[in-house]
């Protein structure tokens, strides 16, 4: 079970990246960091440098996570990926989808996330203390780890798909994943850079949080089912047909 067409594989990577992009921890930290920077009278240039450093940190950590997951998978699954592994990953995605639907946001107003409170508090404090691009870069790295519980599923499925592609397509797939996963941050950074107020960005996030939660959970469900059909059922039938 190793020969899947590259279009289907890249489509899975793209869909996994879109799900990753719908998670909100990094956007929350970027909003908060920008708010503190503006509150401390940071110049426009410094604000953009901080936002740029932060987005770069998120991109690098996303690439590192994906590469690490791919490396571990390729070492553990030599030759091909057994249907049992795909089935387990699909189960994990359905579980993650259900968790997102039930727990992603904390109850009440605002966009508080269901992540460990001491970690949220740490990110809150760091976003206030961040004054240089290098610190913003580190904050970007950390913010991805904060919601590892949720991003784990799309990262693993993308890694499992990537390890069966040619090296060129692996590189393209990784770049595609990282680019798509960081697009919302780039968009928020561009809005801040263009002079939009953080209140308007936060208002939009709050009024659409249920939709974003539904989309992320539903996306995980849909991807889990698609991968199950594509990598388990179809592959099993094809293998039986060949014999």
């Amino acid at each position, binding site marked *: 079970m190793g020969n899947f067409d590259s279009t289907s594989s890249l489509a899975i990577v793209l869909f996994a990246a879109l799900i990753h992009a719908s998670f909100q921890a990094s956007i*929350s*930290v970027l909003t908060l960091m*920008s*708010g503190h920077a503006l*509150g401390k009278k940071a110049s426009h240039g410094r604000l953009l440098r901080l936002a740029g450093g932060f987005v770069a940190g998120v991109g690098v950590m996303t690439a590192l996570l994906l590469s690490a997951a791919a490396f571990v998978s390729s070492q553990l699954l030599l030759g091909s990926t057994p249907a049992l592994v795909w089935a387990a990953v699909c189960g994990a995605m359905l579980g993650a989808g259900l968790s997102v639907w039930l727990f992603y946001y904390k109850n009440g107003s605002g966009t*508080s*996330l269901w992540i460990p409170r001491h970690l949220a508090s740490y990110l*809150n404090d760091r976003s206030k203390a961040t004054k240089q691009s290098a610190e913003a870069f580190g904050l970007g790295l950390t913010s991805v780890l904060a919601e590892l519980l949720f991003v784990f599923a799309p990262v693993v499925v993308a890694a499992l798909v990537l390890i069966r592609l040619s090296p060129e397509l692996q590189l393209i797939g990784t770049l595609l994943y990282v680019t798509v996963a960081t697009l919302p941050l780039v968009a928020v950074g561009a809005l801040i850079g263009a002079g939009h107020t953080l209140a*308007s960005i*936060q208002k939009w996030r709050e009024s659409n949080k249920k939709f974003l939660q539904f989309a992320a959970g539903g996306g995980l469900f849909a991807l889990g089912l698609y991968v199950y059909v594509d990598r388990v059922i179809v592959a099993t039938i094809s293998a039986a047909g060949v014999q």
Partner: protein
Amino acid sequence: MGLAIDVVKRSGKRPTEAFDREKLLRSIVAACLSVRTPEGEAESTAGLVTDHVTLWVVTKPAVTSSDLRRQASTHLQRYHPEAAYFYPRHKIII
């Protein structure tokens, strides 16, 4: 300058502290600046709001930091609705 009024912190884990008008003023200035209000306007708005909150505070022996934030938001709503929206939210963004 601290008045002899205790401010009980949000979680109750940190020790109480005396009410500090300057600290409140700075936090409101920062909220106004974070929604891109010009510096002068931010300072005058913060001054007005801080006056209202100080008048409310002096009648109490102790207040919580959440009470202060709520009072400041209520008065800020009159002068700067956008800052009033953002001001109480920094703890509920992440």
